[in-house]
């Protein structure tokens, strides 16, 4: 089947029901997308599907065919950071960092829909993304910073 990931078209030979997560990680070697729980409880595997933040562990590969998939490595690069990534670096958010790909993708999708999210909105939208290290205070602050930067831009 054909998948478009980070703007690149791929032909993959996988079962229709293979979760997008494992197509990305094991077939396309896009390991910026993380496996954490497999049951949509942690958000580490969050990617954008046609602009919406989804848990890639819950998206069948067949359902992603024809859609635009965006992963953390397509969102921005070390020398060309997305505003959310830049805010994450500025606030030194990560500890172990394993959840942060998903946190950043969730936050980026949030800011696409709400350019000035309130604390309450941030709480609601970001609470599906688990951080075992406890970087929540910095995630909150970084989202506000990213929102301000994106507004200036």
């Amino acid at each position: 089947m054909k998948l478009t990931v980070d703007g690149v078209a791929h032909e993959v030979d996988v079962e229709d029901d293979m979760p997008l997560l494992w197509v990305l990680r094991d077939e396309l070697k896009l390991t910026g997308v993380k496996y954490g729980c497999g049951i949509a409880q942690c958000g580490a595997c969050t990617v954008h599907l046609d602009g919406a933040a989804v848990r890639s562990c819950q998206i069948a590969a067949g359902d992603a065919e024809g859609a635009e998939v965006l992963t953390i490595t397509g969102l921005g690069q070390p020398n060309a950071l997305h505003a959310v990534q830049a805010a994450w670096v500025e606030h030194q958010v990560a500890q172990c960092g394993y959840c942060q790909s998903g946190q950043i993708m969730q936050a980026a999708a949030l800011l696409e829909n709400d350019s000035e999210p309130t604390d309450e909105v941030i709480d609601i939208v970001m609470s599906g993304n688990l951080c075992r290290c406890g970087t929540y205070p910095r995630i909150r602050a970084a989202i506000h910073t990213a929102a301000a930067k994106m507004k200036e831009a």
Partner: protein
Amino acid sequence: MGRLKTLTRRAFLVGTAAVAGGVAFGVYTVRRPHENPLLGDLEPGQAALTPYVRIDGDGVTLITPRADKGQGAYHVQAVLLAEELDLDLAEVRVDPGPPSAAYWNTALAPEAAEFTIPAQGMMRDMVEGGLGAVMKVMGMQITGGSTTVADQFDKLRAAAASARETLKLAAADQTGVAVSDIRTENGAVILPDGRAIAYGDLAGAVAGMDVVQDVPLRAPAQWRYIGKPMQRIDMLGKCTGTLDYGIDLDVPGMLQATVVLNPAQGGALNRFDATEAEKMRGVKAVLPVTGGFAVVADNTWRAFQAAQMVVPDWGDTSNMPATMEGHWQALSDAFTDDQQDSRQRDDGDVDSALSGGKIIEAEYRAPYLAHAPLEPISAIVRVDDTTAEVWTGTQIPRFVQTNVARIAGIEADAVTLHVQMMGGSFGHRLEDEVVKQATEIAVQLKGVPIKLTYAREEDMTHDFPRQIAMARLRGKVTNGQVEAMDLSIACPSVIVSQMGRQGISMPGPDSQIVAGAWNAPFAIPHHRVTGYRAAPLAPISSWRSVGASHAGFFQNAALDELIFAAGADPLEERLRLVHDDLAQKVLEAVADMSSWDGPLGNGRGRGVALTTSFGVPCAEVIEVSQTEAGLKLDKVWVAAEVGRVVDPVNFENLVQGGVIFALGHAMNCEITYADGIAEQSNYHAYEGMRLYQCPDIMVRGLENGDQVRGIGEPPVPPAAAALAGAIFAATGTRLREMPFNKFVDFA
């Protein structure tokens, strides 16, 4: 305080060893700890060290032997080295250092064992237990006990200073310029005329030189990095998805594997039928491993799917009690003279003080807790007839090397280990079952690199959790003051369980049963803390802050009950009782930060707790309020005494994270066993804290002490008790058992 002995130490440099085409600088340290408060007079422990600056034609590589599980260990070690070596932190390369590389062993053998001796804890127990054999087995590197900064603060700077002066000398020899006219900057030696010689270009010259020794360390006023905000060296990679964790690695020719173990912890496998599984797409093999089976496939998900189709016949199951009542009963039964393990606190005359009058009694419980870092455990192992190669995130590289060698039937030095960045650990990676199983698979498929990835469900249900523990208080108050406190704590020995899996027996008392309680820095007139060792139950392992994670809760919760009975204020009475200057200052700090001024009223409440663990007094005040949705955690104020804050941003992040980690577990986490089977298999049943529940957390690092300490664990122990105190103040409900959501609702 008195009972907590500070360590004296002297550090001196030993020679260098030539590395292929380069040179390595190291430091050797001997420490002579004072007598063990628990074990009495013992032989001094020796520590030899591995922090290196490796210089070769490619430049400088900083060897950062402490594993990085998210706490920023690579970063902080790089900072200490870069500070004296005049490197640009943004440009440094780090390497955790393979334990089998020749220069590690030849340079420092036979004492090539890196070892750390914190003021308390597992390491000190082992060292002071006279367990030289353990040191040798543990070998070069272990990460734990919040020791990275504490242990490396002087050593790495000394190694770097020595390297710097040697490089200058080499440049002086080469150019004829006086060494006093030479300086260093940004990874290069700078000559008086402005010419720069990159360190890498001096590799050949320094390889044959005697190392300049006893170089004075720079004064704090000269520091460019230490104590100042800076960007962690792993931050960019972690925010762009470009940094590989162990689970992300791809080795050419590699196959994907997963395991399914007997659901009952420690149970066996009789046989399995893989007929259906073997027909599934991508499946290469279904193989036995100890206690279960492995599916090997060309894709992780295909391995997961096929594993569901294997029909196992499970063998002997766990010998732990069938119900949780049985586990608790075993602890309850342990409060006997026969099972007394330690009594390191026995001030005044507790028996007389508690022989009459109104006695306050209470019982406390702390459950099993999974580590559950977000990266499921994994390991890549390739075995052939004479060698093995391993890629995994681990805190115990030497054990990993030894275990792989044993299973593969080869020599330990034929095992090459590549330590990987870890997506969290909290103590999980102090175990190496995943590496052993990956090796068992690899031995059956020689020559093929096998990546074993645990499904989250296997990771959680087969974790060796935090110990279950129980405490009993008897106490008395007089004239509005705490007069007597007799605290008894029972749990199985986590150290015995953990080291037992490595084939090492641990004699002597286990300080972790009472860690954070026996050394509570309070001068209660009659004060006794007794540890009781329960028989082994579920296999257990070190969980962030180890024994202090339960005993810090028990000690503070029990003290709160007595203070309440006395009609005193929780913070004022602690300030009256505290008898350690450093601990007093952290209490004063949280009083100041929170503007503590007695009860809040109107459904709001504050609690306070203070625990000294890993040499760090840490105090926390927590404020909660009752809302229609349940209890809301509003604010936390934390102060910790660490001697020196190396990186203030990372420090704040680690403290906040430690508090969140502790509070999330106190609110809603426990592992329970039915017939030896863990009943929580994923984050839906083991949630921790979510972002919407996260309070504002204000942090202050104090630098009054002369010992530099780590901060990974000390914020954990006081948090649960401070929360329980706040909930009591807000609601009148006294919480004596975690998790608290069994008794109260959280918003």
